[in-house]
């Protein structure tokens, strides 16, 4: 009886093992959650990646090589942004509506591990779909890309910044309707008014100047510099812009998820 009344032996909620365990459990949780949605997500990414890269060629009587390079090397960036800025906010909005958001927050897992697990899961559908876009686009337009090992850094920096911005939007805005609306507007504006899949020189001057301070052109620039030589310039500045946006979004997201109510 005395043994039953004794408090349970204290579980150490710190240390690498505890963090790794939390990461793994949430990773499996997120993956299981996405299992039904996963085919849809992959299809959307293939359609808007490889599908768009091939389709945009129809707009030109003869596709110029420069335009082809921009579209093929920009498509993966747009795909990574779709995952970070659309999928995560929409999922969190759905969790808030159905009430599972609070339940997930109550789990004894460090918030950073929750983010890292989601980040890893989000890369699973993204990477194959985006590689396909680059391969199909290069074959369609006869491009010879010059892929360097920096592609790993560029893709990680791009996806991490995109996911952090999405995380800040998803957790910072409480109203699910507002989150969904904002993420839809964001992706339309990014698709049309950010020089990701076309050169910045094709925008009006004021819009091109504004884009220098937003992260989207910088993402395209770092990824492009790792896939093809001689097109991207100012890559160092782009990495700094990305680092600033990633840090700011991380702080906002940390404030939002760390906030006690």
């Amino acid at each position, binding site marked *: 009886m005395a043994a039953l009344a004794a408090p349970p032996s204290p579980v150490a909620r710190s240390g690498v093992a505890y963090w790794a365990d939390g990461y793994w459990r949430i990773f499996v949780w997120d993956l299981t959650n996405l299992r039904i949605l996963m085919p849809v997500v992959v299809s959307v990414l293939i359609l*808007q990646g490889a*599908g768009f890269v091939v389709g945009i060629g*129809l707009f030109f009587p003869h596709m110029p090589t420069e335009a082809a390079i921009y579209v093929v090397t920009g498509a993966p960036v747009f795909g990574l942004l779709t995952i970070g800025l659309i999928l995560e906010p929409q999922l969190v909005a759905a969790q808030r509506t159905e009430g599972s958001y609070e339940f997930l927050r109550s789990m004894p897992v460090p918030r950073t591990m929750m983010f890292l697990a989601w980040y890893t899961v989000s890369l699973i559908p993204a990477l194959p779909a985006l590689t396909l876009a680059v391969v199909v686009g290069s074959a369609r337009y006869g491009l010879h890309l010059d892929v360097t090992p920096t592609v790993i850094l560029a893709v990680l920096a791009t996806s991490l910044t995109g996911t952090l911005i999405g995380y800040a939007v998803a957790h910072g805005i409480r109203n699910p309707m507002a989150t969904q609306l904002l993420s839809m507007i964001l992706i339309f504006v990014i698709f049309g008014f950010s020089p990701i899949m076309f050169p910045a020189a094709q925008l009006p001057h004021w819009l091109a100047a504004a884009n220098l301070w937003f992260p989207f052109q910088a993402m395209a620039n770092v990824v492009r510099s790792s896939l093809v030589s001689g097109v991207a310039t100012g890559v160092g500045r782009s990495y700094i812009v990305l680092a600033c946006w990633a840090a700011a979004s991380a702080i906002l997201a940390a404030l939002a998820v760390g906030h006690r109510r």
Partner: protein
Amino acid sequence: MIDTATSTPSRSSERPASEVRRGAGYWLSSYTTMLRFDVASQRNTLPLALLMQILFGTGMAIIYGFYLGRMSPGAMLYVVSGAPALAVITTGMVLVPGVVGERKIAGTWDFIWSLPSPRSAAVASTFTVYTALSLPGIVVTLVLASWRYGLHLHLTPMVVPAFLLASLMATSVGFGMAQAIRNPLVTNLIVNVLIFVVLVYSPVVFPIAQLPGWLADIHQVLPIYPLAQVLRASVSSGLVENLGVSYAVLAAWTVGAWGAAAYVIGRRR
């Protein structure tokens, strides 16, 4: 006294004096009542729908220019004269299926079908509202796009039938599709895929000659290319041939959509 009492029966206990529930007069009065119902029940969302149509139509016309870079005047004319089609497509393929789906989820259609008005009057009212909503959207999109590219268009008297038939076709097809597919979530998914295919793989802002032969052949019978052709012919000259065929294809799609809608709505459950 007795005469008065018998000649004015109390309303609560007896049916109203045989009201004729058929004929043109009854249909028209049902139609105007449903029109008032439709406008009143969507008074908050209709201005937003108009705004979205203009932003999306004009936005896409401008965005195509960013992707295309330096364009020849001919290419520019294609983009500007294709802009009205973008506005119409937004209404027919995004807004109308969205509203129909929302009403399905909320059970509003069951309520509407239970009203003592012919179902055709209720459907005609929805078509009227969204066809009318498209018209200012088309005009504003056209004005903004031609201002952006610095082009002067040649409007012909054909703008009236072209704008009306294009809007009516888009509304009818969007409505028919959304009614025919039972699950609004499936409709939503199909709409999202369709809008992508329409915006990238349809000859709306570029000549059909740029498509591979097989895709061009498919577009001859799908409604998007004829829609763009009919609208383009009404605001420009010398770009469109075989206009009669385009009108015929649009009319066929409109009638087909009405048939599909009539079949789904007329079915008893």
